[in-house]
């Protein structure tokens, strides 16, 4: 599903190779500054490598900008304030995710009753089905991160990237977010890469764990 060949990003990633099969859940660990987030940014397209190639489902997408890759790759960021828009309603946040990879036209209104029903169905899983009109900024950190998770999974993206998604959360909210991962990612066999520093998560999750060291990946 995902294939990185000889990826080189100056001062960070050196001749990095990685293959992730369809439905595989891969954990990525490593010291601070080892290049984990740069690796994710290279996959999502916000960083263009100076060398090497990125393939998703057999297609070379190395030179495709992030907005074009959005239909293939869904992101959940470490900070829920980055993964959601504070001053927009939960509905608008979900609408943005819903249109990922689709053509945004001037003709169609961004809201509809059908979409609302679909969103409520998804939000039941995180107990926010009655909060469509709330601003994302009115939600707690845990609720916002859970919303980010739902947004990442709302379209059928081929790859889901989870970047230290529980780092900013307390233990209770971390547990809730991990439940969503278990229910919506792990058990549904989504192709997923997850950065974590949490030893419990390393023991509980993932088909395999990779260590990023000196710009290269090492199998644990």
């Amino acid at each position, binding site marked *: 599903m995902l294939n990185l060949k000889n990826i080189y990003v100056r001062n960070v990633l050196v001749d990095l190779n990685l293959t992730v099969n369809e439905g595989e859940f891969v954990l990525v660990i490593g010291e601070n500054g080892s290049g984990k987030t740069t690796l994710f940014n290279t996959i999502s397209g916000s960083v263009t490598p100076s060398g090497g190639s990125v393939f998703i489902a057999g297609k070379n997408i190395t030179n495709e900008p992030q907005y074009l890759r959005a239909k293939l790759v869904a992101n959940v960021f470490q900070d829920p304030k*980055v993964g*959601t*828009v504070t001053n927009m309603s939960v509905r608008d946040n979900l*609408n943005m995710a819903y249109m990922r990879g689709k053509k*945004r036209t001037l003709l169609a209104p961004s809201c509809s009753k059908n979409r609302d029903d679909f969103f409520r169905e998804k939000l039941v899983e995180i107990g926010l089905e009655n909060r469509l009109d709330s601003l994302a900024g009115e939600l707690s950190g845990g609720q916002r991160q859970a919303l980010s998770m739902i947004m990442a999974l709302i379209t059928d993206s081929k790859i889901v990237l989870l970047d230290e998604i529980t780092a900013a959360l307390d233990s209770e909210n971390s547990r809730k977010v991990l439940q969503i991962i278990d229910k919506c990612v792990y058990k549904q066999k989504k192709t997923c890469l997850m950065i974590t520093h949490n030893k419990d998560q390393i023991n509980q999750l993932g088909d395999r764990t990779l260590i990023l060291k000196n710009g290269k990946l090492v199998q644990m």
Partner: protein
Amino acid sequence: MLTLNELTIAIEIGIIYGILALGIYLTFRTINFPDLTCDGSFVTGAAVSSVIIKSGLNPMVGLFFAMLTGGTAGLLTGLINIRLKVEDLLSGIIVAFILYSINLRIMGTNPNISLVNETTIFCCGNPILICAVIVALILFFIAYLLSSDFGLGLRTIGQNKKFASANGVNVNVMTIFGLVISNALIAICGAIFTQYQGFCDVSQGTGCLVIGLASVIIGEKLISKIKFARDMEIVSRNFCEIFLALFACVIGSIAYRIFITIAINSDIFGLKTQDLNLITGLLIIFIMSGKQKC
């Protein structure tokens, strides 16, 4: 005391400058781009419209070409910012600087053009009514645009570019689009205002940004509290909420003009016409010193 005639003129100018406020709202609030092109594009619209009217063409043609040239100025600012990687503030300043010479060229090197005895859009009716119809059409168009999926993408880039890009929005194209629409509106405002006052001057764009910003801020303060019923149909509610936010800019513009007219005409503290910029600046400081929306 303020006479009825002075109040009417203040409302008329307020409605016209409401279009400028809408343009400023699109850049400063919607796409979060501090665009200083407006001081130039306002005059560009006025100049193009004046030259077209002088050549005997229909004044509506003048508005159309003003819109096109204003949009082109916005496009230029966007391209300088995105393609040449010049900072947003500086790219607007550069284009406004360039436009001063271009505006003089358009005006045939005359610093002003008189439209006295020429046919303008105000020849055939009540100015308030004509302005209100034009502003209403623009309001509906922009509200419709912003309430679409495309408009949601446009609104998002001003809030969180990283999020927008990760969700498939081409931030560069959207930024340029926002600048084009904004400057097209500002140029239309310049064109209408020059037809209203009957002359065009190459320096009449000075201070447009501050006036537009003041209008937006006053409007937000006056109308931010209104909420629509939750049981209202969602498409209509979304449209109405966006329409109201835009309408607030027009209301803010009218309120600003009335306030300025009252301040200058009522001899409070001995204020005179030359104190206009002082009053405007103090008004903005006073409004902004209040609690800001998050």
